[in-house]
């Protein structure tokens, strides 16, 4: 399933790059101008297609609705995909407000209390 998706994405990437080349043979594109060679840019496209499938699968395994995951990765750029692929478990995921931090502090205090390291709550 994932392999089929990756292959489909790869095929799309190949068609896209072919389309660009035949339409503008001999033209020097902006990505080449900015950095690297045309060959490197093409390799990036292949890697990005693989990264897109990888990130989509990781989102689903982290509980994202499979139907929504495809649309979500569709709006990530190749560079963004390359940066996050394989790291969805470890990248900063913003979600907690200060309340949650206070909750964490409370839990820490509670653990310390239960394990007998501190003796705060009995005195209160």
């Amino acid at each position, binding site marked *: 399933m994932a392999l089929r998706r990756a292959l489909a994405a790869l095929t799309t990437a190949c068609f896209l790059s072919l389309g660009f080349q035949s339409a503008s*043979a001999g033209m020097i594109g902006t990505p080449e101008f*900015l950095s690297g060679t045309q060959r490197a840019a093409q390799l990036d496209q292949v890697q990005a297609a693989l990264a897109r499938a990888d990130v989509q699968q990781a989102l689903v395994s982290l509980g994202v609705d499979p139907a929504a995951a495809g649309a979500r990765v569709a*709006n990530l*750029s190749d560079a963004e995909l390359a940066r996050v692929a394989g790291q969805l478990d470890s990248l*900063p995921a*913003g*979600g907690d407000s200060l309340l949650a931090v206070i909750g964490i502090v409370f839990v820490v205090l509670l653990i310390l209390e239960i394990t007998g390291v501190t003796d705060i709550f009995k005195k209160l």
Partner: protein
Amino acid sequence: MAAGALALAACTALPPSLPEDPARELSAVPFFPQTIHQCGPAALATVLGWSGVAVTPEALAPQVYIPGREGSLAVELAAAARRAGRVPWVLAPDFTALQAELAADTPVLVLQDLGLAGWQAWHFAVVIGFDAGREFVVLRSGTERRRIERWHRFEASWERGGRWALVTLPPGRLPASLPPAEVVRQLEEARGVVPAGAPAATYAAALARWPSDPTVLFAAANDAYGSGSPDVAEARYRQLLALEPTAVAARNNLANLLLDRGCADAARAEAARALADLGQDPDHHGRYRAAIEDTFARASAAPPRGCRPW
């Protein structure tokens, strides 16, 4: 009303008081109090709302929230901004950039780590202002409409968040703090995923702001060519070459356009000139050689017909 807000701020924030200063605080930025784990959708709805997209955190959550992480990723906030028809721009990781955006009336979405003693608590908030003495920043954050943080505390939490900062702008509006090469780089990296028409609108704005920047001229020329306006592209390549005669990539592309409209002799002359200029700087421009040699070969083989106008 101002007195009430002040009293509230005095109760909930550390600094004793900080009057709302319309000169340095974007008071019109909307506020969406977050629900548990939903600071990503709330912060995104805040900046999108400011940029003219009416959307609720609840509508954004299915696009950015990751249940298994109990939070949202920065890149997915950028992706969701694109889905909403806006262009996300990542700022340089320094407070000067943040201040420049605020001075241009743009609220800034930031990633903070509000954790303590090694406990990480990643949090998205929106910076909407700072005080005259630059001791405090004002944020839309969590359940607080007007959270005031001491600058050094904010900076420490922002530092731990990698100093990540994002603005979301309508297509054609440029971020105040980004230099031209960075505008081009971010736009080209996101080509294909930014809203349709955003590249052309952005390049039009970039040319207005930096009319003689070589990177902007070259990228804008390529964009015009790619979107079916070769006449505009030719004018931009010529403008760039007038400023920078050894811009071999522009000369190569100009040669191709000349060939497209039948000017074989002129195309061959431009390609030959590009090859000659390339020879003077083999290290820097070596990667263009194959493309320029190809252009020269096709120009040499083309039948000598007259030039057609576009």
